[in-house]
């Protein structure tokens, strides 16, 4: 197998403002973020010859040919893994530039107005939700909060993890958001605020759930060689992988409800990057719900299965702790940009551009994705 370690680098990152509502189309927002990423790399939009748009969105590669005036797009793909899509796309883009199929691959994710329809109606149209739609939606399981609540409750019953431990993830993200002017959640959160927030799908309270909002983010992946000649210091992709759980179309039928697809991907990415867990200076962990962060920390191997609740205690995941996570505030407190905002943040941390929230001497970092019914992805990057 071709070793992909350090064959590719993030050469540019960009985003729009993140807002509660918008009067702009998903396409318009996505193009703005994409243009910002291309300019950040010091490229011209016409230099892009590969595109991986978000599979759950309405933007396609053709839109970039049309709007960027790309004369010869060599590579287009999608990575339909819900919230794991953005990080999974890093692997696809890395393969494309490492093999020379493309020179500069643009990865985009945009979210337009949220008034565009009920989430259960949107999910029903997704082929990966076919079984859920047939057997679970008719009995009142209609949204991700409910799908994942069964996993979280099982974890609590087996391992004794608690709502207060989930809260530490929310409090951490919110505390970090206070240092990020782009973040939507600018009001500090106390444990009591979390515990008093209304129950959504037990054990998930409102503050266990990520934000809704509009905006877009994008990154450009170039071959390591080309990236060295561009405007910004390259952030190398040392290791990347995607992983799928058993019974990926129905959580209900999964052998172990507390194990996610990322458990398969983690050893591959760590081995490819040639680093250990102790080398990770900062981690941007996909946080659609607080519990999903705990579970990923276990499946990534930062602690044993069942130990996630203890692991996050005592400030370990906060700035200044052993493993600061979601330094931008995450989906819980910055914005729900499908985790593309996690990739952007990791790159900025490794470039040392994060001001007040900068992790001191951040050299190696990790970013994860989680989506649909347990799909996972991760990338380990370094400066």
């Amino acid at each position: 197998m071709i070793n992909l370690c350090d064959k590719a680098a993030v050469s540019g990152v960009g985003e729009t403002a993140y807002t509660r509502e918008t009067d702009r189309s998903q396409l318009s927002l996505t193009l703005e973020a994409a243009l910002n990423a291309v300019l950040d790399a010091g490229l011209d939009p016409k230099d892009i010859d590969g595109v991986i748009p978000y599979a759950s969105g309405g933007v396609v590669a053709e839109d970039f040919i049309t709007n960027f005036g790309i004369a010869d797009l060599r590579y287009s793909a999608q990575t339909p893994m819900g919230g794991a899509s953005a990080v999974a796309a890093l692997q696809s883009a890395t393969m494309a530039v490492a093999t020379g199929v493309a020179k500069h691959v643009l990865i985009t994710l945009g979210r337009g107005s949220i008034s565009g329809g009920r989430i259960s109606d949107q999910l029903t149209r997704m082929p990966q939700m076919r079984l859920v739609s047939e057997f679970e939606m008719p009995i009142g399981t209609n949204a991700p909060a409910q799908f994942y609540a069964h996993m979280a409750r099982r974890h609590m019953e087996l391992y004794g993890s608690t709502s207060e431990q989930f809260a530490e993830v929310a409090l951490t993200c919110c505390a970090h958001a206070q240092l990020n002017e782009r973040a939507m959640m600018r009001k500090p959160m106390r444990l009591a605020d979390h515990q008093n927030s209304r129950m959504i799908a037990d054990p998930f309270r409102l503050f266990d759930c990520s934000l809704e909002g509009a905006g877009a983010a994008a990154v450009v992946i170039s071959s390591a060689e080309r990236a060295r000649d561009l405007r910004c210091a390259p952030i190398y992709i040392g290791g990347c992988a995607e992983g799928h759980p058993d019974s990926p179309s129905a959580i209900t039928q999964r052998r172990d409800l507390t194990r996610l697809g990322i458990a398969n991907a983690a050893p591959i990415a760590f081995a490819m990057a040639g680093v250990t867990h102790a080398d990770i200076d900062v981690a941007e962990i996909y946080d659609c719900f607080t519990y999903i962060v705990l579970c990923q920390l276990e499946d990534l191997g930062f602690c044993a299965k069942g130990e996630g609740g203890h692991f996050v205690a005592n400030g370990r995941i906060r700035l200044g702790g052993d493993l600061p996570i979601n330094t931008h505030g995450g989906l819980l407190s910055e914005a729900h940009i499908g985790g593309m905002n996690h990739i952007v943040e990791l790159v900025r941390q490794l470039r040392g551009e994060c001001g007040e929230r900068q992790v001191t001497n951040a050299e190696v970092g990790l970013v994860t994705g989680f989506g649909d019914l347990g799909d996972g992805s991760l990338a380990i990057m370094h400066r």
Partner: protein
Amino acid sequence: MNDIYSESPAKPRPQIALENQSYWDGLRRHQLLVQRCLTCAKLRHYPRPMCDACYSFEYDWHALSGSATVHSWTVTHHAFHAGFKQDLPYVTVTADLRDGIRLQAPLAGSDVNLAVGARLDLEFIDVDAELTIISMRIRA
């Protein structure tokens, strides 16, 4: 009419097509049917075209008994679909049947003794002339 599954506004309906037809037809007769591989006898659920143990497309339908245990659950307090607003809050259990087969079903009756491993009895709710669903009740 029943006390845990209101009739309006409309709830989402299963498509009831192809591999799923016999399952839903079984529920109409108050039978829980799962697919059984005709080559290796492995049971599987939710319904799908082929056996993942031997790749056979041949199967028949096997009736499972009416008892189960709690694997996990959630209590929904927020109406993600208008059809369930009247039922809030409601409990949905993931229930272990046998051979690794599970079901998700609404919980009828009290949730006081809800815990992993709690014994469940399976019940049938005739929603209307076309649709029957399964509910679970904690065994007294």
